């Protein structure tokens, strides 16, 4: 019989494990912070000469490129972390710790969701450190925006983690991570509104615009962008929530040894 107490205890255990893992992997922690800063300091600098981007919501006036890509880079941090964290499930599964978790009396969906949420919670401080450091580049959303962004970051991070979980249920070995980088992370990131506004992508190529408009990562970024400026992007909220339910549902099914993708495999 599982009770809320059991669930809470299990969640705290998973959270502690994720937190310890994050702290002990210093290289990963540092690179999670350095990666977006490199984009902001070097990549964005090249486009700074652009004489201001036209005002599109949620911005009320002209902005520099750094201001535009900062929410996209926060999204990138969640994307990389979500993929890395969820794909570490492959390792967990190979080494047996995931099997241990999945054989607990708790519902499988809860174990997987708890793992996802714990993974998002441990990366949030790093994302906030990045957002505060971005102020050095004059990326200054209103103070309340940092608070409003919290639920958006959690929802977006969980959705991206669920996508990673789904992919990890399809992968046999950890070595396939490079493939995931090339075929999942890069297309999701580059064909999104993280780096360029949708109208610009649409202008360059209608297909690219369509892909970016349907890319769930675009909606994760827009949800964060609007929240940082104290606004709600309702269509993005709907897409991110819907994608979370679909990805999480499929991942739960995929992790069921009796029915999911594992059934077809030799272990």
């Amino acid at each position, binding site marked *: 019989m599982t009770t809320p107490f059991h669930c809470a205890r299990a969640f705290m255990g998973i959270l502690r494990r994720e937190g310890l893992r994050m702290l002990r992997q210093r290289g990963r922690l540092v690179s999670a912070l350095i990666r977006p800063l490199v984009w902001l300091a070097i990549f964005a600098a090249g486009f700074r000469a652009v*004489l*201001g981007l036209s005002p599109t919501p949620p911005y009320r006036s002209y902005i520099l490129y750094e201001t535009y890509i900062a929410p996209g880079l926060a999204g990138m941090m969640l994307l990389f972390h979500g993929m890395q964290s969820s794909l570490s499930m492959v390792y967990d599964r190979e080494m047996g710790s995931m099997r241990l978790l999945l054989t607990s009396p708790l519902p499988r969906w809860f174990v997987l969701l708890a793992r996802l949420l714990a993974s998002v919670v441990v990366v949030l401080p790093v994302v906030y450190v990045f957002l505060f450091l971005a102020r050095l580049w004059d990326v200054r959303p209103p103070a309340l925006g940092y608070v409003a962004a919290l639920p958006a970051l959690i929802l977006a991070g969980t959705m991206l983690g669920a996508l990673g979980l789904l992919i990890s249920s399809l992968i046999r070995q950890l070595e396939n991570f490079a493939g995931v980088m090339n075929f999942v992370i890069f297309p999701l990131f580059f064909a999104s509104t993280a780096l360029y506004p949708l109208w610009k992508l649409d202008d360059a190529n209608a297909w690219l615009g369509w892909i970016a408009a349907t890319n769930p990562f675009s909606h994760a970024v827009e949800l964060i962008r609007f929240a940082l400026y104290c606004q709600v992007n309702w269509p993005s909220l709907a897409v991110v929530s819907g994608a979370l339910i679909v990805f999480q549902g499929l991942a739960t099914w995929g992790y069921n040894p009796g029915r999911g993708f594992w059934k077809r495999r030799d272990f």
Partner: protein
Amino acid sequence: MQTLRCGLFLILVLVARAGRADTIYVSNEQDNTVSVVDGASLAVTKTIPVGRRPRGLEISRDGHSLLVAVGDDDRIDVVDLTSGSVAGSLPSGADPEVFATHPDGRRLFVANENDNLVSVVDIGSRRVTAEVPVGVEPEGIAVSTDGKTVLCTSETTSMVHIIDAETLELTDNLLVDTRPRWAAVSPDGRQIWVSSEIRGTVTVFDRSSGLETGKIEFSVPGVEQELVQAVGFVLTRDGSRAYVALGPSNRVAEVDVRTLTVRKLFLVGQRVWHVALSPDESRLYTANGNSSDMTVIDLRNEEVLKSVGVGRGPWGVVVAP
């Protein structure tokens, strides 16, 4: 919770802004209109049709009218601010671009761009009473607060002409950097400020000796220097700060007058022509020629608040309390 917080924030912002009574007027050079923007809601509340090619504009001394130089119709339209429509006009000489009202409220000094003249208009009798020949393509016009001196820049001659407001004689011609656009006498009456579009500088002269006492250079990181062009500018009443429109670099510079250095750059719309301070000097409004909008800057918090779409080719901007 997020919605509640954002809602509370919005209410606070709205309450804070409800006190503002500024009305901003922007001349739209290519639309032959003047846009009226409400300072509280930051939205266009009215578009007033005026004559062809409106550029320079001023609120009349009594605050009841808006005067607009309509270059292609060779006159100055008088807009009644109560009815929000053109109620009459004043003569101006050919192709008026910029004008300034004398502190006595009886005379206008008008730059006639194509005729190389400054026309003096008697407002009461609605007549051009005198013409002062100046350099080629006169543009910037200013009258000192003591009413003794009229300044006129001539773009092609690269000079600022100093005219005695009583005798209407040229008392001095100061050579300045290429294509001077705008001129002003400092609030304390001691300095003459002139902007140069091509060189992208503002030169400061001692008014009594006519000698150059300083020069402000501008640069915008990542923007080609030739795009950094100084055009319209305004000084605060206490003379401590100046705000300079930097044309196609899409920036407005805040200048510390004591040190003649740039304190901050604000990103605004494309090809910013002219700027105006709100009566309480807490805001700066800009007219952005190529992006058909005007930008509102909160000077206390040093942040750009909003860009508001107006007509095509915004050129001049003035604020009524």
